[in-house]
């Protein structure tokens, strides 16, 4: 079929139209594409800026400093903290400078070298510390971590973080100073110091250790302490080496071997050594005490020697006291002497003069105490004795007494005037034929004469100066006559001035009160005052010698007897017991009987003390020991509840322990032991009489 003309033209038009439309479309497409690309670039740019900003903000929020440089070390960025450290307010003040321009001059070369090395090798150097120098002289120590900024393996710059380490640096420096200080202290201390590590080997010794034991530090370290310091001569084990002392500290003194083989005296202190909770082994200190030990040894020897001398002196001096008192028929004498020190200045003497029955009595107190006083006492006593003998033929007691006193005094004043020694003394001569005592009191505490009821009849006041003062003053002689049963008490001021723990004196008042009783014997008076002053002194030291002398004229045909009384208290129990024993001994009673009375009196007094004064005011217990012809009698007197011991039932003494009663035994024993026992109660007083035949 043939094609007609217009349909072709229409087809061409359509094609052209289509072409146009396509072209138009293509152009639009291209424009669109361009537009898109532009916006993507813009977006990327914006994202980058934003990220970079955030990045910088992050950098600024760090504590550490942050710096970026180019490959020449020229700073391109710094963060705020670093600016702050340096004292700059804006980055512009720093950007453009080289990194090492910010360090102190002496570090600059070193720091620039590190940059160069980094740029050459691309490898980050070790962290390093350097001093930075900022605005207005500001400076600090910083620890720098330097690393490369890479672009495709190419180093294009550096970045550095800087941590201010000034405080740490200073702390470290301070610690180093302290460590040096401690090291010096350990080295310079005179105490030898050893540290034993947990493996038991020595890890440290100081210079004093080297010096004390002779081992150099290098010889000691790694060794075991016991191998260095032990020796067969040291019997004990070395506690500081072997003991596994956990919490305990060891403190001891002993001997340790030195390198030279000798032994040295040391004080050892050892302790486990902790830092925090970690055990570092043991710390041992040795102090050299060899000099002290030697000095102590010398001192001890000197003291022993002095004590031996003193002891010998005491023994010799005691030879100047009468060993036994002379027997004086119709008279009763008893004395007490207690030295404050081993040698003393007090003394008493009783001695016969001539052949007319005269007896000399002396109680003296030499001024001062100790060896000098003792020597003077010995001189005085010998002078009195020898002048007594020399003048024994003198007619009349008074003349004799006068001669003795004047000569003794003159000798002391003229021969020993320079030593300024003196003594107060009472010198009396008794003539038993007349019962008269002539006496001179040379400045001494006045003796007391008591009548049979215990009243003071005469006070023997001083009638002359102390012996040794002067020859210019006379000695007045006085005399007294003893009536039957009268008793004279002489004493030294050691008695009245004896102090208790509170510092109170025994006192004249107490003496007057205690002595004012009816005494059956001189022994009773002296024992009572002795017990009383000892109970006053208690646990206090005795400061002065105490001397007592009692002289009593017996009653015609009297039975020798001794009396003692104390409060019915448990603390006095040993006193009752001891009094009976001493009284028996004084009277020469046989030992077995004495022992029996000791136990019997103890049992009786224990009962009285425990039960006798129940619900009553505590009274006294009195003991009377009498020596009859064929028996010894002990009477126990009290004023408590009447209680007849004889009525007590004998306790069951069977062999079965569970049946045995515990009470009543004491009374049973007394009944069993004594030969006779009787009881009487009258007018509120109870008397228990115990007898033993002899």
């Amino acid at each position, binding site marked *: 079929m043939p094609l007609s003309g217009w349909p072709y033209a229409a087809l061409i038009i359509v094609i052209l139209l289509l072409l146009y439309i396509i072209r138009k479309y293509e152009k639009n497409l291209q424009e669109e594409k361009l537009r898109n690309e532009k916006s993507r670039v813009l977006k990327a740019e914006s994202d980058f800026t934003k990220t970079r900003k955030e990045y910088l903000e992050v950098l600024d929020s760090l504590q550490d400093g942050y710096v970026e440089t180019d490959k020449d070390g020229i700073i391109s960025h710094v963060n705020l903290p670093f600016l702050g450290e340096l004292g700059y307010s804006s980055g512009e003040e720093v950007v453009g400078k080289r990194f090492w321009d910010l360090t102190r001059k002496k570090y600059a070369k070193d720091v620039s070298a590190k940059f160069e090395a980094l740029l050459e090798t691309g490898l980050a150097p070790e962290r390093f510390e350097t001093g930075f120098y900022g605005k207005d002289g500001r400076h600090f120590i910083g620890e720098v971590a330097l690393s490369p900024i890479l672009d495709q393996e190419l180093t294009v710059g550096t970045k550095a973080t800087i941590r201010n380490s000034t405080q740490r640096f200073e702390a470290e420096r301070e610690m180093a100073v302290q460590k040096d200080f401690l090291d010096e202290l350990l080295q310079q201390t005179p105490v030898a110091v050893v540290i034993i590590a947990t493996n038991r080997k020595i890890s440290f010794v100081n210079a004093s250790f080297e010096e004390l034991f002779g081992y150099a530090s290098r010889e000691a370290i790694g060794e075991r302490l016991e191998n260095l310091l032990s020796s067969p001569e040291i019997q004990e084990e070395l506690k500081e080496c072997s003991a596994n002392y956990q919490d305990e500290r060891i403190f001891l003194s002993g001997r340790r071997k030195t390198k030279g083989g000798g032994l040295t005296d040391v004080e050892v202190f050892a302790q486990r050594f902790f830092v925090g909770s970690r055990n570092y082994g043991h710390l041992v200190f040795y102090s050299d005490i060899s000099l002290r030990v030697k000095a102590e040894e010398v001192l001890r020897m000197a003291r022993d020697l002095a004590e031996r001398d003193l002891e010998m002196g005491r023994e010799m001096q005691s030879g100047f006291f009468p060993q036994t008192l002379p027997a004086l028929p119709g008279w009763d004498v008893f004395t007490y002497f207690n030295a404050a020190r081993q040698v003393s200045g007090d003394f008493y003497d009783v001695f016969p003069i001539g052949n007319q029955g005269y007896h000399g009595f002396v109680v003296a107190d030499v001024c001062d105490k100790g060896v000098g006083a003792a020597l003077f006492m010995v001189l005085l006593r010998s002078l009195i004795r020898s002048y007594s003998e020399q003048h024994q033929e003198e007619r009349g007691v008074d003349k004799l007494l006068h001669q003795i006193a004047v000569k003794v005094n003159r000798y002391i004043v003229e021969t020993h005037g320079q030593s300024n020694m003196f003594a107060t003394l009472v010198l009396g001569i008794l003539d038993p034929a007349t019962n008269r005592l002539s006496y001179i009191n040379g400045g001494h505490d006045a003796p007391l004469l008591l009548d049979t009821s215990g009243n003071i009849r005469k006070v023997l006041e001083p009638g002359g100066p102390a012996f040794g003062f002067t020859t210019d003053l006379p000695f007045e002689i006085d005399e007294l006559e003893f009536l039957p049963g009268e008793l004279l008490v002489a004493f030294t001021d050691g008695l009245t001035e004896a102090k208790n723990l509170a510092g109170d004196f025994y006192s004249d008042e107490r003496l007057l009160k205690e002595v004012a009783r009816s005494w059956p014997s001189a022994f009773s008076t002296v024992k009572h005052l002795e017990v009383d002053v000892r109970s006053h002194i208690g646990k206090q030291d005795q400061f002065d010698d105490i001397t007592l002398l009692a002289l009593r004229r017996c009653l015609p045909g009297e039975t020798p007897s001794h009396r003692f009384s104390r409060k019915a208290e448990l603390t006095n129990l*040993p006193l009752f017991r001891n009094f009976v024993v001493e009284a028996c001994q004084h009277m020469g009673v046989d030992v077995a009987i004495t022992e029996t009375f000791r136990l019997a009196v103890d049992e009786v007094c*224990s009962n009285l*003390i425990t039960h006798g004064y129940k619900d009553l005011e505590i009274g006294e217990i009195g003991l009377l020991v009498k020596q009859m012809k064929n028996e010894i009698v002990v009477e126990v007197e009290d004023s408590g509840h009447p209680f007849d011991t004889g009525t007590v039932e004998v306790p069951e003494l069977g062999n079965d322990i569970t049946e045995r009663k515990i009470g009543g*035994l*004491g009374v049973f024993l007394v009944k069993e032991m004594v030969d006779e026992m009787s009881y009487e109660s009258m007018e509120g007083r109870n008397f228990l009489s115990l007898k033993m035949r002899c």
Partner: protein
Amino acid sequence: MKIELKDINGVAVVSIVGELDALSASELTGFFESRVGDSYINLVTDLEGLSYSSSAGIRIFLGLARSFRQKGGDLRIAAVMPPVEKIFKLSKFDRIVKVFPSVEDAVTSYDE
């Protein structure tokens, strides 16, 4: 009075030095209560240094003998001096407790 406690082979050995009377008795009783107490079954008292005892001492020893026997042990006495021996005999206490010449004998007697 001086009192000391020693442990010999698990036996309490108490040595008493001095004089024992109603006054010192409380000290001794206190010592047994505080230092010996219930720690031991067997007891020996060493009386070598005891120079004297009244019935107060016997009373203590009797009490000790009782309490130690109640718990299956005993009190045995060593080295008694004559004055104390006398009161032991008088009171017939020596029939109730065993007395030995020495501490060693008294301690080893517990092994038999």
